[in-house]
């Protein structure tokens, strides 16, 4: 028996149909990514048991969950709204989970510590901020000793600032307790930060699936998906921040200079997101240019789309994506297989690995 989460599902509600046949490895964070209405939440509800599929089965680690009621499935769910019980305190909400939990889950003290819940324990639910409430909800889900965590856009209701504040907790908890998780989001940034693998849903079907980096670099926004094409790259800090506040990263033997890594020492691995539109192309190594990040690469693939040419580059390590105009691409005579120089204007840091 494979330990995978096997999803073989058909579910129709009105105009919407979910049809999925996927097998997800039961480790790390699998991002479920797609536009609104793609079936992400429906998929999670089917796995949690809140909805029953018209046809199909859900098997986890060899156990068939298809016929089990939600209360018998060893999953922990964090909903978009925290759904904390308003008649109980924070402690009461956590205890509710503990009393009914399976054995062998994360220890109470560890959960409280990792999510910094100690100062909240005696608070009433009504007095919590959105971010605090969502931290409590995550803690409550962890305390059920789940074998699979379902996170349904847990950050969607928070503003950017609160989101930034809670993300490190979320990441830390997911790594520390090593419970396999499905993370639903329509934010490519959250995916880039949290997901090890990504399943892309569009119109109720799997459009792509695989390691996060590979899926993101192959992703083109469908109408209504507000994200930028780009890649996720992991690089090692080769030289800690200098007097200018710039650190040098090793990217498969080439040097990438980035700001914002003060306090991060040599040898640390960071995750970067490089958007396709922030990468320009030269056919010769340019001189006298303010852009310091020039990476030599082989042009693997050129796809022409409307006025743009989408380029996929092999740096000898990670891949890069570039979007330039088709006119420029033709003027430079870009063809697959040739050596080019990628000029990277901006790099956004997604955090430490």
């Amino acid at each position: 028996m494979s330990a995978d989460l096997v999803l073989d599902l058909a579910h129709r509600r009105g105009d919407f149909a979910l049809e999925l046949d996927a097998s997800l490895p039961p480790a790390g964070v699998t991002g479920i990514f797609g536009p609104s209405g793609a079936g992400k939440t429906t998929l999670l509800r089917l796995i949690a048991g809140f909805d029953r599929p018209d046809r199909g089965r859900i098997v986890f680690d060899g156990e068939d969950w298809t016929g089990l009621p939600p209360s018998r499935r060893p999953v922990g769910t964090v909903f978009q709204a925290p759904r904390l019980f308003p008649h109980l305190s924070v402690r009461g909400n956590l205890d509710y989970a503990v009393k009914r939990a399976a054995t062998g889950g994360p220890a109470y003290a560890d959960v409280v510590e990792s999510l910094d819940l100690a100062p909240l324990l005696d608070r009433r639910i009504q007095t919590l901020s959105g971010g605090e409430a969502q931290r409590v909800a995550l803690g409550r889900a962890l305390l059920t000793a789940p074998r699979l965590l379902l996170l349904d856009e847990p950050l969607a209701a928070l503003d950017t600032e609160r989101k930034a504040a809670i993300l490190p907790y979320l990441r830390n908890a997911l790594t520390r307790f090593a419970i396999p998780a499905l993370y639903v989001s329509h934010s490519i940034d959250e995916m880039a930060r949290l997901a090890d693998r990504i399943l892309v849903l569009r119109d109720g079907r799997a459009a792509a699936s695989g390691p996060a980096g590979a899926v993101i670099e192959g992703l083109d926004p469908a109408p209504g998906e507000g994200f930028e094409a780009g890649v996720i790259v992991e690089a090692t800090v080769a030289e800690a921040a200098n007097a200018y506040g710039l650190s040098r990263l090793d990217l498969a033997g080439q040097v990438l200079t980035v700001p914002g890594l003060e306090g991060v020492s040599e040898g640390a691995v960071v995750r970067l997101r490089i958007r396709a539109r922030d990468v320009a192309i030269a056919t010769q190594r340019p001189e006298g240019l303010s852009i310091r990040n020039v990476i030599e690469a082989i042009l693997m693939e050129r796809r022409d789309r409307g006025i743009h040419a989408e380029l996929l580059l092999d740096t000898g390590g990670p891949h890069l994506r570039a979007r330039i105009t088709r006119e420029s691409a033709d003027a430079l005579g870009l063809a697959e297989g040739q050596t080019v120089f990628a000029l990277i204007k901006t790099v956004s840091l997604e955090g430490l690995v």
Partner: protein
Amino acid sequence: MTGPILLTLALASVTTLILMALALPLAWWLATTHSRIKPVIEAVTALPLILPPTVLGFYLLLLMAPASPVGGFWLEVTGSTIAFSFSGLVVASVVYSLPFAVQPLQAAFERVGPDMMEAAASLRARPLDAFLTVALPLSARGALTAAVLSFAHTVGEFGVILMVGGNIEGRTRTISIAVWEHVESLEYAQAHALSAGLLVFAFVTLFAVYAIGRGRMLHVR
């Protein structure tokens, strides 16, 4: 004079207990079901609000007659007729006050909503566990309102009791019947005492219900 008062209190207490036991599952079912017969059940539950007590009492009386299956069964099991007995009054009161128990509970359960129940299920609470530990505490005010209204409405009933129970001292003569009896006999002083008592009771009850309701609004905010 204390006879009718004690009888009324006993009747209202027993009726309220039975009603709550019936109304909790019924209101929960109505609040959560997607069944197509839900409107039918809701209409039947609400019937006592519209029907004249005499009509309701008339049918209950027919049902309780020893010749009917229900009345015959009762006679066989208990050895006495159900009509014109305290038990008969309880049955009639339960039917007559049913909407006053079901409707506040149903509204409260609907406010709890499926989200909280899903959260409870996601924390491994089985349905009954989730009902007792989440739905019921969150509906406490609704349950209190239902109990108070059931009790008060039973205290105030007249027509159904007269139809089903008649006017038998110590068995079926409740306060409202006693008032009627006193007025018929031109004993206005006694009628006054009982009537004023009921008036005060009714006001206090309604005041309590509205105070509970106001508390809920503040709670939500």
